[in-house]
């Protein structure tokens, strides 16, 4: 774990350059370029609001904000995982020729998505006053669930990036897992929609606590209970410990399988 922090710090410039490369390549050859990072969530908001608030008539006030406050952190998680799972295999040619710590690739994938997440908060911050929803002071609390989310995401990405080196099926499995996970997490709905005797099942979801933190702060203007915050950090560090532990154990072998 000490090694993870040390190498991340030592190679911070490389990680940053790789993350910027990822963003540049992602938006290269598009007329709007980086604007897509803002437009993507904005357009998604529009579609989802249309579907859930207008057509399906969810009776949640300011549904777009309710939805986005949970959807943006989810999107960060899903996209990070989608990118990072390929990060070792995708950089295989590089790994075979240059001695470089392997952890920089999944970390860079996550960092590029952190930038995306921060950018995507801008359209949300514009939308809130636009819909005459109050901007609560609890927005200031957002860095806390964000930190837990990033740590959790890193752990999960380490695990899947390593697994994908050995079995390329993992890329496909991740997609299936993500779509199931999406519906299992209260994003398009609230946890209160779930019958009380079934709620324990949803509470097993480690992502619930972070996503709940986002929604409480942005939509309800409240802070989560300390137990919920503690749970989110325990889950996050557990994921990182397991994910990075496995990654570290196998990283010297990656070069033979990519």
């Amino acid at each position, binding site marked *: 774990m000490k090694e993870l922090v040390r190498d991340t710090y030592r190679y911070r410039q490389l990680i940053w350059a790789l993350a910027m490369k990822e963003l540049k390549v992602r938006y290269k050859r598009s007329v709007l370029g980086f604007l897509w990072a803002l437009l993507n969530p904005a357009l998604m908001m529009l579609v989802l609001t249309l579907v859930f608030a207008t057509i399906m008539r969810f009776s949640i006030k300011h549904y777009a904000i309710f939805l986005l406050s949970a959807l943006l952190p989810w999107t960060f998680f899903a996209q990070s995982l989608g990118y990072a799972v390929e990060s070792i295999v995708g950089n295989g040619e590089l790994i075979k020729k*240059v001695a470089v710590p392997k952890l920089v690739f999944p970390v860079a994938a996550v960092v590029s998505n952190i930038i995306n997440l921060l950018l995507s908060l801008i359209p949300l911050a514009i939308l809130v006053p636009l819909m005459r929803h109050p901007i609560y002071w609890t927005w200031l609390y957002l860095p806390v669930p964000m930190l837990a989310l990033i740590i959790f995401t890193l752990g999960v990405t380490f695990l899947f990036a390593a697994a994908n080196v050995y079995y*390329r099926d993992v890329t496909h499995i991740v997609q299936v897992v993500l779509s199931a996970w999406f519906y299992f997490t209260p994003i398009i709905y609230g946890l209160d929609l779930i019958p009380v005797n079934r709620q324990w099942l949803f509470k097993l979801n480690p992502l619930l606590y972070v996503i709940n933190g986002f929604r409480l702060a942005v939509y309800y203007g409240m802070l989560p209970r300390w137990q919920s915050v503690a749970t989110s950090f325990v889950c996050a560090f557990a994921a990182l410990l397991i994910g990075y532990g496995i990654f570290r154990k196998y990283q010297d072998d990656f070069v*033979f399988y990519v």
Partner: protein
Amino acid sequence: MSKQQPLPSPIVVKVENVTQRFRVMSERPDTMRELVAGFLRHKVSYRDFDAVKNVSLQVAQGQMVGLVGRNGSGKSTLLKLIAGVYKPTAGRVHVEGTLAPLIELGAGFHHELTGRENILLNGLLMGYSKAEMRRREQSIIDFAEIGEFIDSPVKQYSSGMHMRLAFAVATEVDPQILIIDEILAVGDASFQQKCFARIRSFRESGKTILFVSHNMQQIIDQCDRAVLLEHGAVLADGVPAEVVETYKHIWAPEMTAAD
């Protein structure tokens, strides 16, 4: 016994009883379906293959060592072990000082990024800082003769430009140890000359160079020591002309026919 001569130069590359084992799968299960199918058939379809076998090698600072041997004799594997790309299955590799691996030039280049962006990325990959790369940027561009193309994506570069830029990045950072794997076979004559001129100036400034080539004349002309590898083991080590002679002797056509 030439090692008995007083050698004040410190050892900068130390390879101690290194073995590199590769697991060669006849049908490596790349997907879980194949894995499950393999289990069901109770088939373990791999064999172990030692690309480098119990090799020990010491290189003193300022030496230019040529590695010779047939294809598959373990030259590239040995270079990659020294470069730190592989962790040895057994034994120890110790390298003193910064090392620039010219194993495949431009390995870190991304075709969508510009030459300038790639200079930075490649330098960072080799472990240099951003400030350092910015400082050396102009001399890299000058040496590579890239001109105004430096701000175009490298996918638009000719293969010669690509090579020149990669060589420039790898050598301009001023490494103490240079590893060159057959890369000088490409590029036009004038650039090759420029590369060799730079390699000479590296030698004059007391840097260590490990060099793989199939061009025996290059080995004899450039190196002050040669190592012959065969089946992953050191077969001869000494004066380039003699080692090259051994190599030619062992692998002369009539001998291979008898083999």
